[in-house]
């Protein structure tokens, strides 16, 4: 046993020493995106630049806390998140540095960038309404319509603990009165077919078997279900709904972004910049669109055929920061409305 402890201890020490050895040709990534999802992108980056990417994937808030605790000795170069609210939070925590890059200025529209250039959006995630094809006569054209009493017992939507629902409500709060939105949320809760549970795909699946006829979900989940005809039940479930782009007459469909920022304390700041520039390049944007089924931030990238079929849509141009600033109020409002 003693021998074993010693050998384990030496493994620990070795990995410790190895971790201390910083070579210049690497970049350290703290990622709130799952490793499997960004792996193709990072491998492409390493292949074209020779820069090795070290990664820790976890929840955004946990990573932020880790960066804050590690302070000036943090090894992290880049923080990658899956929503604008967290980028805003990280910026507020004062951990980001200003990104100066012509490539990024050229490739990414103002709408998806921080006003002080502390973070950049890398992909757009749309959250429209989906309706079952078999549903007889559902007329829906806005998020506001989700509270209409005629949809009683028809809506499937996931928990309000989910960031995409929080962002959606935050975007509503940005354009309307809090009281009105609370009434709206209460109406929506009354229309729910079941207590919120499961993920976005589960809502689509439930709609397919007739538990509800209206779903709110991110498009890449639906696209993923439709992309794999071998998984028959999911393919069938995905095929049973159509996408309705809400609020096309008004402010547009709610979108969120995944994005990244470079840390003030980054030991490999140059490589970090190169990584973000790469993620904003045509090649990476195509991977976002065709492998992950998200909408690219850069204009002129061809979409996956599944996405093309849904047609183009008008996206809400609300300042992304608002999703962050309104997040806590949105959660409180949903608590009051009884949205679990």
């Amino acid at each position: 046993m003693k021998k074993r402890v010693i050998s384990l201890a030496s493994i620990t020490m070795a990995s410790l020493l190895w971790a201390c050895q910083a070579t210049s040709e690497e970049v350290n990534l703290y990622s709130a995106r799952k490793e499997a999802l960004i792996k193709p992108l990072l491998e492409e980056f390493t292949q074209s630049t020779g820069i090795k990417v070290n990664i820790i994937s976890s929840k955004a808030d946990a990573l932020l806390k880790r960066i804050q605790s590690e302070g000036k000795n943090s090894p992290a170069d880049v923080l990658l998140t899956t929503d604008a609210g967290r980028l805003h939070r990280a910026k507020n925590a004062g951990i980001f540095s200003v990104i100066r890059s012509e490539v990024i200025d050229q490739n990414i529209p103002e709408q998806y960038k921080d006003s002080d250039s502390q973070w950049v959006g890398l992909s757009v995630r749309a959250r429209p309404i989906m309706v079952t094809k078999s549903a007889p006569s559902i007329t829906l054209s806005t998020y506001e319509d989700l509270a209409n009493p005629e949809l009683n017992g028809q809506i499937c939507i996931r928990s309000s603990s989910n960031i995409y629902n929080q962002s959606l409500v935050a975007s509503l709060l940005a354009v309307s009165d809090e009281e009105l939105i609370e009434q709206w949320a209460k109406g929506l809760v009354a229309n729910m077919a079941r207590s919120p549970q499961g993920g976005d795909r589960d809502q689509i699946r439930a709609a397919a078997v007739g538990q509800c006829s209206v779903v709110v979900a991110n498009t890449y989940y639906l696209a993923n279900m439709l992309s794999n005809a071998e998984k028959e039940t999911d393919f069938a479930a995905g095929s049973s709904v159509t996408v309705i782009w809400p609020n096309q007459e008004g402010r547009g469909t709610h979108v969120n972004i995944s994005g990244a920022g470079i840390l003030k304390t980054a030991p490999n700041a140059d490589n970090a910049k190169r990584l973000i520039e790469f993620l904003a390049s045509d090649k990476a944007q195509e991977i976002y669109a065709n492998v992950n089924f998200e909408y690219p931030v850069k204009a002129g990238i061809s979409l996956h055929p599944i996405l093309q079929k849904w047609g183009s849509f008008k996206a809400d141009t609300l300042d992304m920061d608002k999703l962050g600033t309104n997040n806590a109020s949105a959660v409180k409002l949903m608590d009051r409305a009884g949205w679990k």
Partner: protein
Amino acid sequence: MRFSNISWQLSSLSIASLIAFPLLALLWISFDASQGIWRHLADTVLLDYVLTSVWLMLGVAVSTFALGVGAAYLVTHYEFTGKGIFTWALLLPLAVPTYITAYSYTGLLDVAGPLQSQLRTTFNVSYGQYWFPEIRSLGGAIFVMSFVLYPYVYLLARAAFVEQSSSFRNAAQLLGLSQHQAFFKVTLPIARPAIVAGISLALMETLADYGAVSYFGLSTFTTGIFRTWYGLDSVAGAAQLALILLGFVIVLMTIEKQSRKRARYQSSKTHSPFEPEKLSKGKNALVFSFALIPLLFGFIVPMSQLVIWALSTYDTLFTAEFWQLVSNTLTLASLTAIIALILALVVAYAYRLTATTTTQLSKTVVGLGYAVPGTVIAVGTLVPLAFLDNTIDDWFRTHVGISTGLILSGTLTALVIAYLVRFLAVALSSVESGLSTISPNIDQAARSLGRTPANTVRTIHMPMLRSSLLTALIIVFVDVMKELPATLILRPFNFNTLAVRAYELASDERLMDASFASIFIVLAGLIPVIFLTKASLKQTH
């Protein structure tokens, strides 16, 4: 001799301080301004958090008692077909992470799952025209957790039944009690400390669970903590909720202690193990089916679902990288299990040696961590360790001129500490319940023959406690292997475990792809479980 007592006390105290550090950090964080969050919680969701958690705990307590004690009774009292296999196989559900079992039951029983779909096509009905239990509900959570967590009760109850001398039972039967009466009046009360310890472990695990309850959409304390942190952006509010959770644990521990106080039975172990009863054919079938129930719902059903999923995806996931995951996972789990066992022995024995305020306090502190969600412990570990790292770094920069960087918080050290904070309680609980069955007369005899306390532990207690010690090792090992939230936050670069991999895929709603890693967690856990159970059996035969 007095000197050595003091050194035991000091060791116990320093172990407790290691565990207390992250919890104190939590207290520190909770003092931050929380901007009226508390008021909001009390007005809206707090009652729901408390009630759901309480109902969940009650349900799990009753069902794990029935399943765990029932199973332990069957394998210790009867000779039936497959008993040898059941003895260790009944532990298997423990090797499956709760959230994975929850995922696979949901996949099976959900409205869109194969079972309900089959029902609809067979009977030509549509949704809403038939009744079917909702798996994603409080009842569903109690079901899933009970079948995953009953092995804690089974393990400790079985050890207690086995370590009991049969002379008590023989005496009871001589005095005219039937076998069943003897069980309820003698065997069960003697095993009570172990059973209560097992149930409280199951309950603490229930309190700390996040994966399963959040997937089921339940509002428990844990989901509330994360909602407050992530959603309301209030770390202080989340820390305050976590402290209330600690309050729950202290109540639980007090109940456990009270129950032990009233029941101090020790056998002096003049070994005459009990002879299990041989059964008629009919009874044999009956006992067999009863023993199968926990195994079926805790392991066979969810695993079959995973295997079916895995068969359709294995070629895409089976890579060399996988062995790295397996080796990372096993290394961490065995390292932590061994350290935890040693520390638990020190703390438990220091208390046995001298029941002072110091040793009592140490014991209590060590017990606290188990019910705290891994993420909370991770943050509690991270904050002070990073602070220490930066302080050391500053000192070296000014005095030696070199930067030491993050020597603790960015490495596996942080991870092992977090695991110890969370799981030392389990090891302690098992060691303690074992120690409580050894009469102090034995200690006194050994000491009067000139043995030191350390020597007594090594040569007398450890061999007698073999079964309990191995139990402690198994539980910590398996727990670490399944551990997710703390691993997710504290791990070094490019370091993944099987649980991390399974979770990342499952939480991306790719249950099928996650199944392969999940099966590996179970397989990797299987080997030590079988090995250690066999070893612990050897001693008792």
